[in-house]
């Protein structure tokens, strides 16, 4: 049987691939085409999603040439990361490694060298997969996302951004223009763990990120976030609160782990069952606290 070929004929009449070099132009195109335009940055996710049906996409907005979105900058009390910064650039950044070591560790476990060289932090955020590996660290470090449309800009908390599997609050006129993470001057310890079926190229079965800031041995701030354990990457604020103002030695690790288990809502899928994910989350939580305890003693 002959298959109908719907692909447009090759030639010079392609007006539907936009590759602006400035954010201003990109926002104008975004504003004009709204949901009719597909955003592409590193393409490592969207080209998989549209594998063999790329021709079905009518309009592409390729933001990969916007140099202003590729920077990592130190501000007075934060680090500003452009959305086009790749996973590889995150791994190589001394600035990120120094202040947000768990974000570096998470980036190092994304995909493979071929994916890390192209996939971007902005792509990871806007794809909004519950299994997005950079998302728990961003939540735990209390990142803020800068969003802009042609007319307005706004800054939102990372834990208000994700609304469901592959869903977020980004409007169809907006682009993510930056990720800002506050720098702490306290004594910071971070833990990151990814559980998957193999080491490379695996979608996480579960990820957990714990950040603890200490002042005179007391926990001054806690950031705890879990990935692949709910419809969105989740920050477990209730558990964070219970750790505040205490010494590590005053915490009952087992009890906290049990609470993590109770506060996540994973599903059964081909990467693991609900029960498995709950048990693993509890186990890694204990590991996280033990590891930070050890680091502080030796440190």
């Amino acid at each position, binding site marked *: 049987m002959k298959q109908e070929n719907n692909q447009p004929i090759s030639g010079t009449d392609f007006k539907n691939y936009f590759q602006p070099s400035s954010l201003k132009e990109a926002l104008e195109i975004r504003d004009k085409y709204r949901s009719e335009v597909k955003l592409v940055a590193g393409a*490592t996710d969207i080209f998989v999603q549209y594998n063999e049906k*790329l021709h079905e996409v009518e309009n592409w907005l390729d933001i990969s040439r916007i140099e202003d979105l590729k920077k990592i900058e130190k501000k007075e009390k934060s680090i500003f990361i452009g959305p086009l910064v790749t996973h590889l650039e995150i791994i190589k950044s001394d600035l990120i490694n120094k202040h947000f070591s768990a974000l570096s560790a998470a980036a190092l476990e994304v995909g493979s060298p*071929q994916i890390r060289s192209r996939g971007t932090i902005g792509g990871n955020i806007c794809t909004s997969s519950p299994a997005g590996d950079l998302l728990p660290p961003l939540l735990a470090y209390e990142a803020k996302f800068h969003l802009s449309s042609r007319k307005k800009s706004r800054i939102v908390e990372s834990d208000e951004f994700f609304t469901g599997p592959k869903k977020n609050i980004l409007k169809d006129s907006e682009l993510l223009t930056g990720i800002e993470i506050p720098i702490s001057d306290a004594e910071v310890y971070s833990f990151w763990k990814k559980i998957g079926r193999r080491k490379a190229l695996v979608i996480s079965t579960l990820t957990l990120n714990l950040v603890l800031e200490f002042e005179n041995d007391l926990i001054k701030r806690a950031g705890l976030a879990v990935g692949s354990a709910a419809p969105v990457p989740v920050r477990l604020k209730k558990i964070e609160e219970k750790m505040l103002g205490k010494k590590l030695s005053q915490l009952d690790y087992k009890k906290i782990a049990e609470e993590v288990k109770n506060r996540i809502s994973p599903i059964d899928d081909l990467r693991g069952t609900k029960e498995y994910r709950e048990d693993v989350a509890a186990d890694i939580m204990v590991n996280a606290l033990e590891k930070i305890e050890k680091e502080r003693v030796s440190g």
Partner: protein
Amino acid sequence: MKISLTVNGQLREVEITPYTRLLDLLREDLGLTGTKEGCGKGECGACTVIMDGELVASCLVPAPQADGSEVLTIEGLGSRDNLHPIQESFVETGAVQCGFCIPGMILASKKLLDENPHPAEEEIRLGLSGNICRCTGYAKIIDAVMMAAEKMDGRESDQDG
């Protein structure tokens, strides 16, 4: 739309569509069929090439993003009569069985050795972690990369001396 890019040292101009992948451009427009398509989803590494110095899965690179870039494919690394030391090492250690993954494996090895001329086994495994081989069990591929590291070391010091 027309783009121009440097492939294996030569400037090429190619007519593309917005949904042409770098992989299609290399194989179909330029006839460089040493770059293979395995999964088409960035998971197997058979389509690996080096673009602007970075290892990429060419099945996930929109051709318009390759405009102005510099690409190295397996055809640009060595020739039948003048193999690259990495290629020699793959032959000598018997690291090739069906061969489908090998162009990607060799380019991933090149990228690794360019950055880290004396990798430990664990570093080799990490460098090649985006490339899947279904024949060899990887042991001989790792031997090949180690042998290549030695050969390249020797040749570099020859040049220096």
